[in-house]
Every structure is written in structure tokens, then in C-alpha cells.
């Protein structure tokens, strides 16, 4: 049996609901977009349903501690199709047998799940570290990032708690949306194609505050001065700060 759905987490939870409703546990998930026009009678189309997904969501919170229940969603943010299938199967298993299934590290699916979770958590941690704000001339602190996984939802509370007294925007240029804090709440924002193109070259297009370039420069020279030449270890450096992150890190953009 194939379930086709829209690729959202809500859709996946709806699929779990449907699986229990029809007692269909041997299911392959596929995206609507992959199966367009395909004519198989083995395909069931799942349309995301907030009531159904909510019941599954609440159910998970009943059988698992909050943090563990959230892990399914965190792993889902890895955007890996194989992991979506694994999550689907593990949620069903958790409901059917035993919640401790997630500790069975001898099982390959469980290992894969934890690996995905680890990757997402690492990216989330990286974003806490690698977000660099520029202050624009309206006093807004703006940052552009391109995380490997869709982790912005996971860093909202961190930035909201920490930078509570300054308005900020963190924009995911890969997924074309951002999170905006206005001193009260955080909202999701999208911007036009032109605006987002402009963001490819930060610094040139954000109207920065007069003192901003001074502090960028001070940071760049601090970064250089705190390095110990005699201990140079570029391999380790690259391992911690992979090149793909450099274009938004001022300390790695310094040319002189």
C-alpha cells in the first residue's frame, strides 16, 4: 500500500492516523508531487487534516515525555525522504507495541532515526553559533543563513530569550522564509524574489547602521589577533567551520 501526502509533518501525522483507522501498517509514503497522474489502485491519497494530526500529536505526548515526542518532529526537519518513512514506521511502532523501541540501538531504523536527529540538533546548535547580526539603520538586527536542514523553528526560543531587547530578523535564504522578532512576538515572514536576491550580498544591500562596519572590522581583527600561529591546524579549523558557512561569517570574509 502507498500513501501519498503533501510532505508536511501534519500530513505525515495524518497518514499515521489513517494507518490505524484502516489497520494498514505496511505502508510506503510518497509525495503527491512524485505520484502526479500515476494510476495505481494501491495508492491512497492522504490530505492533511489538523484534527487527525492533532490526535496523533496529543497521543504521542501521552505515551512519551515531551522532549522525546518532539524528537519525531526534529528528525522530520532533516527533510530526508527516507527518514520520513522511518519516522512514520517508528511512530506506528511506538503506539502499537512499546515506546521503548526508540532505545533499541541494535535496530537499524532506530539508529537511522537517531542519526538524523543528531544531524538536525547539530545544525540547530550551529545556527545558534553562526548567526551573525548586522544592525540596519532602523535599529533592526538582521542575519541571513543557509542551514543544511530546516532548523529555524528550533532556534526561535533561544534567540527570543537571549535578544529580548532588540528587534531581529533571521532569514533562511535557502528556504526563502525568515523569523522576525518585534520585541513582543516572533512571526514567520517571507519576502519577494528581488529582496531575497539582494540578500545574497549582505552588507551591500542592507542599509547598515553607521557604527556597524566599525564593529565588523573590530571583530575581524579580534579574530586574527586571537589566533596562535604556532598552533596552526587548518584541518581542524575546517572541520569546525565548514566552508559552506563562510559567506555569512564576517570573520571569514575579511580579505586583508
Amino acid at each position, binding site marked *: 500500500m502507498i500513501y501519498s501526502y503533501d510532505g508536511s509533518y501534519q500530513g505525515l501525522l495524518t497518514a499515521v492516523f489513517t494507518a490505524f483507522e484502516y489497520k494498514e501498517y505496511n505502508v510506503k509514503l510518497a509525495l503527491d508531487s512524485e505520484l502526479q497522474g500515476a494510476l495505481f489502485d494501491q495508492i491512497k491519497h492522504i490530505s492533511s487534516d489538523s484534527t487527525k494530526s492533532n490526535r496523533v500529536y496529543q497521543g504521542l505526548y501521552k505515551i512519551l515525555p515531551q522532549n522525546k515526542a518532539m524528537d519525531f518532529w526534529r528528525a522530520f526537519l532533516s527533510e530526508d525522504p527516507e527518514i520520513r518513512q522511518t519516522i512514520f514506521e517508528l511512530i506506528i511502532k511506538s503506539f502499537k507495541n512499546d515506546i521503548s523501541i526508540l*532505545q533499541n*540501538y541494535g535496530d537499524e531504523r532506530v539508529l537511522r532515526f537517531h542519526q538524523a536527529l543528531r544531524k538536525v540538533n547539530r545544525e540547530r546548535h550551529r545556527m545558534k553559533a553562526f548567526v551573525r547580526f548586522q544592525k540596519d539603520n532602523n535599529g533592526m538586527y538582521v542575519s541571513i543563513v543557509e542551514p543544511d536542514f530546516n532548523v529555524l523553528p528550533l532556534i526561535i526560543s533561544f534567540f527570543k530569550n*537571549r535578544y529580548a531587547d532588540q528587534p531581529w530578523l533571521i532569514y533562511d535564504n535557502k528556504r526563502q522564509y525568515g523569523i522576525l522578532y518585534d520585541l513582543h512576538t516572533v512571526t514567520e515572514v517571507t519576502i519577494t524574489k528581488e529582496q531575497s536576491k539582494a540578500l545574497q550580498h549582505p552588507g551591500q544591500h542592507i542599509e547598515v547602521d553607521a557604527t556597524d562596519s566599525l564593529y565588523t572590522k*573590530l571583530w575581524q581583527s579580534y579574530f586574527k*589577533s*586571537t589566533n596562535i600561529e604556532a598552533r596552526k591546524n587548518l584541518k581542524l579549523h575546517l*572541520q*569546525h*567551520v565548514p566552508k559552506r558557512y563562510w559567506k555569512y*561569517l564576517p570573520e571569514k570574509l575579511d580579505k586583508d
Partner: protein
Amino acid sequence: MERLEEKLKILADAAKYDVSCSSSGSKRKNTGGIGDASYSGICHTYTEDGRCVSLLKILLTNHCIYDCAFCVSRRSNDIQRAAFTVEEVVQLTMNFYRRNYIEGLFLSSGIFKNADYTMERLLRIAKKLRTEERYNGYIHLKTIPGASEELIQQAGLYVDRMSINLELPTDAGLKLVAPEKDHDSVRKPLAFVNDKLKQYKNEKKSLKHIPSFVPAGQSTQMVIGATPENDYEIMQVADDFYTNYNLKRVYYSGYIPIANTDSLLPQIGTKPPLVRENRLYQTDWLMRFYGFKIHEILNPEFQNLDLEIDPKLSWALRHPHLFPIDINTADYWTIIRIPGVGRQSAMKIIQARKFGKLREYQLKKMGIAYNRARHFMICADSLITLGDIKMDNVRRHILQGTLHNQSSVTQLSLF
């Protein structure tokens, strides 16, 4: 502003030999201002030497009344001198923090005029950040040896971590290169802060509104390889300080030769002992997290760590009678003694074996260093080797595995 950049260059350069950059251990919350502490710490970037940059690490000034041979800022050294104003440090910290460059401030200083004068200025900066800027990010402050207890106690109420460096592992070593200093002047303030820490903690149990006092604890640093102490001596000192002063961390800093006229010290061009430094940290970890006692790893018969292999492997090779360990029955503290198995993997093994006996193919996928570990453990389907394990063979095997690309493998004799 040109001048500010100049100062930053000089005073960051002078502070960089302090290796601690940890921003962990504090739970300070944002109380209506800006900033909070991340309990596990965050490294915001890494320098080209591969070291974490978490804090803005600077000296308030590199003027110093002392003349310690191992220190760049010693008074007889002909270098550029500079000093920040209190306001400059506050502005740098706030502006870096607001841009998410750093987790906080690590502030140290050369001693100018006298200890109290210096400590008083450090304290003023911490106080200003907390009260005027309403800043709740991380602050690591150096305790200035010889400063009055009153100033030290006050500072403790504003900062997250305090530290004083031992500089050299033993008093004898210190006397050689810094005759004006001694370890007692380090022990005294460390003990004072430790006592206060306990006192505040106790009071916190009964009273709600006791302020937190140095919530991330204290640390210290020793320079390695400048003076002739062996690894056993060094780790004995570390063990003493962990046990008697409840330090959160002891840092080991491989000596990097600087221009000096002291013939006792390694001269410029000598490579810093990076491998040795790494082995000392590994030993430190084994003592703090793996339940090893110092004498298991280092003792009068074995005074220096093996540079070719890590200390856990080295210990295991010296104790063949304790292996192999059956991972399906052994407890956690025994499993983490297997070379190549870390704490996380050990937890996974303990949890996973409840679902059935673990086999080799499962262990291979659990994230352990299987090629090292396999010599020391048995799984449900492992072939039983009769007789003792030949540890010389194991060592050769592992070294070949890790060094197979290098031509300079020292072959060990097969007797």
C-alpha cells in the same frame, strides 16, 4: 577609533595564551535586559589553529609589574603596551554580544600598580555590564592573586566563572622562571572562593533570594613543557586541585616559545608539545568522567604518557587480565573502560541489550571505534580466543590501522 582597533589587537594577542574559552556551566537567565547563559556553552567560531572562540578574551592592560620569563607581558619585554578604559571594554562586549559574535567576556589583566587597583577595575567592568547594561551573558574574570578578599567576593556576585592560573605545574618550576611568584598566592584565593561558593549554596537551600555566586565555578591553567615536570607530577597537581578546590576545569597549555633571554626555557622555533597536551587532556577526561583514579594511569613506575596511543588504550594494554569484557553482561563503568568505547556508546549498549543479545554487526554501527574496541570486548557471536590476549600484537595492529598511510610506522618487535 583607529586607536581602539590597535588596542584590541595588542590586548587580544596578549590574552590568547590563556587557553580557557569555555562558556559553559552557568544557568543565568535574561531578567528584563539582554542575554543569558547557555548551560553547555557555545563556540561561535574557531580560529585557524582550530581553537574555539566563545568569549571576547582580552586583557584590560598588558602593563605589568611582574617579570615572569614565560609571559609575553613581563615588564622587561620590549613590546607595545596598551590599556582599555572601562567604557571601551563594556562597549566592545555589548556590541559583539548583540551581533551574536560571542557568548560573553573573558577579562584578564596584567598587574598595574598593585593587585587591588587591578582587581577593582575588573570588578567595575563586570558591575557596569550587569547593572547598567542589564547584561546577562557570560563573564569569566581572572582573580588577581593578592587582591583583597572583599573585592574578590564582590566580583563573585557579578561573574559566572573565576580563575587563577598556576602557570607552572610545580612551585619548584615556578621559582625557576618567576621568582616573584608562588603557588600559595594561587591556592589562597582559590580556597577563599571555593569556601564562599559552598556558603552561598548552603544559604540558597534555606533562603530564596540569595544571589548566585560564581555559578560556573573556578578553573586554572598550567603551562606544559616549559619546565621539566613529568606527566605524573602534572596530573597529581591537577588531581589535587580537582579534589581540594572543586575546580571545574584544569587547562593544560603547551608552551609556545616567545622571545626571551632565559636559557632555561625552550627557545623560539621549538614546536609546542601539542600531542603531549592532548594526552594530558585525555587523562583529565578519564579521571573526571570515566571513573579512573590517577594512579591507574600514571604512577611511579609509569611517569609519562605514551605519545603514540591514548591513555585508555595504554592502560588497557598494561592490564590484559581485565579483558576481554562481555558487553552483554558488564556494567556501564566497566564498558566505558573498553578502548574505543565512549560514554554515549556505552549508554546505547546498555539500553540496546535489553532487546536481545548484541552481536558484532550491531556494535559496528553504534558509533564506537570498532577496530580498536574489538580486541577488548566480546559480543554474543564473538569467537572466543583461547589463552591470554597478546597485547603487543594488539598494539601493533591498532597502530598499523591508524597510521597505515604514514611510512614512518615504528615496527614493534615480535618476540
